């Protein structure tokens, strides 16, 4: 690539090259530059704010439950009768059809098939979905980075083993592996020696999702490190007598950091979607804990009488994931204008 800034002809590319030039001149770090670029991307910021808003709303779930809806996420009001527009109405009709949105404090978004307040469950469900998404992302990113870097750095049999393991996981369809692990592990929980995870724990679902996505991040990181390790500065570090650990995490890691950062929102969005999918297939969050996925799948049963049970959590899920995706796209544009990094669904 030419270093002559004016050589590149068209818009986007041109600007990024100039930025690189500027950065050389002015000594602005790549991350500050990216932050500056991101700050100019109003659409990405708006969607990021949308996501933040959803997060805040979900965090405020206990307040809403306690002060406005006066019920918990798992409290059932099956045989209760409440007043809607002055008329007493069953929360759950004798044949089990839940009340629709009342647009008032109690049952603002209606009740679900077990007479629980949908609005309250929506917020608590969001907490669970987000928690799983964040934990899964953490697991994926952590393990994928370590495996990718260590494998590519040392090469040899260790790398072979890691690559084969990646291939193995990668050859499964995501949901098939997810439900296989989900169904079997939920029956027994997971005993990792030091700590035990109960079958009904959210962490277990997060762990499964995190595990499934490892190769999708690990492979690109490994590829990048394979190139990096041949570069001069790594040689130099080696000749200085730096230890492998120091080189891997002091020299290599910072150079793949932008790739890792780009993957974070992608994996977060995909984890949340996968959680929903697994819950739909009965291998995700366990009842009675709500999550957006379980709420949708419970709601599907009551279509067509109560489409709101599907629409409410579904739209919330789409909005949250959309927020992450658009914001993440902005982050990627800012860090990696050539958009070389992508993930399979």
């Amino acid at each position, binding site marked *: 690539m030419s270093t002559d800034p004016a050589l590149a002809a068209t818009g986007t590319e041109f600007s990024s090259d100039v930025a690189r030039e500027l950065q050389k001149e002015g000594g602005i770090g790549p991350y500050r530059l990216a932050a500056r670029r991101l700050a100019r991307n109003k659409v990405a910021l708006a969607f990021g704010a949308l996501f933040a808003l959803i997060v805040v709303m979900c965090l405020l779930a206990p307040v809403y439950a306690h002060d406005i809806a006066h019920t918990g996420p798992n409290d059932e009001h099956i045989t209760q009768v409440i007043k809607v527009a002055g008329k007493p109405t069953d929360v759950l009709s004798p044949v089990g059809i839940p009340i629709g949105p009342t647009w008032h404090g109690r049952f603002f978004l209606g009740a679900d098939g077990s007479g629980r307040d949908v609005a309250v469950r929506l917020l608590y469900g969001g907490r669970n979905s987000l928690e799983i998404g964040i934990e899964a992302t953490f697991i994926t990113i952590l393990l994928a980075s370590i495996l990718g870097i260590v494998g590519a750095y040392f090469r040899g049999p260790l790398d072979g083993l890691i690559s084969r393991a990646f291939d193995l996981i990668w050859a499964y*369809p995501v949901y098939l592996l997810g439900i296989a692990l989900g169904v*079997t592990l939920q*029956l027994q929980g997971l005993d990792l020696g030091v700590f035990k995870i109960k079958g009904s724990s959210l962490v277990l679902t997060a762990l499964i999702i995190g595990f499934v996505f490892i190769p999708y991040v690990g492979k690109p990181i490994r590829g990048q490190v394979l190139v990096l390790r041949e570069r001069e500065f790594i040689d130099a570090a080696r000749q200085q007598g730096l230890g492998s650990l120091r080189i891997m995490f002091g020299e290599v890691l910072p150079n793949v950091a932008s790739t890792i950062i780009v993957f974070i929102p992608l994996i977060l969005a995909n984890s949340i*979607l996968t959680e929903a999918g697994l819950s739909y297939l009965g291998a995700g969050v366990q009842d009675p804990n709500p999550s957006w996925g379980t709420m949708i799948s419970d709601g599907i049963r009551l279509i067509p009488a109560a489409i709101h049970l599907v629409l409410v959590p579904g739209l919330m899920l789409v909005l949250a994931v959309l927020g992450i995706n658009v914001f993440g796209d902005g982050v990627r544009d800012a860090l990696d204008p050539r958009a070389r990094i992508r993930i399979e669904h």
Partner: protein
Amino acid sequence: MGRFVVRRVASTIGVLIAISIFTFLIFQAIPNGDPALRLAGRTATQTQIEAIRHTWGFDKPIYIQYLRTMEKIFDGSVVSYNQGFNVEEEIRRDLPVTASLALGAGFIWLALGIVFGALSAWRAGRWLDRGLTVLSMIGVSMPVFFLGAVLAYYVGDKWGVLPPGDYVKLTEDPWGWLEHLVMPWFALSVLFIGVYSRVLRSTILDNINDDYVRTARAKGLSERQVMIRHVLRNSLIPIISLWGLDFASVIGGGAILTESVFNLHGVGQYAAQSVQALDIPSVLVITMFGAFTVVLLSAIVDVVYAALDPRIRL
């Protein structure tokens, strides 16, 4: 080419063996997971359970059980725990459904992905691009079973435009086949259209700045010719290979959610049902079949890739 084939066959066999062992082991971890108990039913006596254990070979060590199951898979005689059906026949029967879903959806998502991606890149930064970007972002943010359920409700039940699910055989009722599949095709495609249009857009924007594109302009080619003959053609190469892998994963049972929500008796739904029923033989065969299609199609993709991009050596 010869070496490529040998290498690929070897690695395929390796992956299949590994995947079968891994799948088998996943299900061994179930507590009280003795399949004999499930098979025997609630009122079975100890004698009966013993008998079942013996006939199915559950009294043998795990590796023998594994080897016996694999042997049965190879000679095509493996039957499911649940109803004793021949698993391979089941897959063979489910495959036309999955293939119908994959072919139609694959065509739609490839075509629309290319059109949207190309338009988006062509108008990069303009309103059309922004609109398409938002659309594709919504597409990749949409859980397919949510979209499917909502579509089935509105388009299927409420407005009655299309049937809300099920599969009709192409050989029996071609029109019904099409009618029943339109919604699943669309629902399954949405995510991929989003992904493909984004990938194509960025590939095009990347290639647009390549030197050979400048050369093409300098030759006096019109903008359209430059875009189609050089930029688009070169940018499609990675899309085609992506398509091969995604298509393979759908064929191999990856469209679990779509098949479930539209009640299509395909490989994916069979997979989901088998896993939930803890039916090890079926799950083993399906995962191996899925992995095999993925590995096979990725090999084909590599060959096609090499044909499209002469720089790649097999």
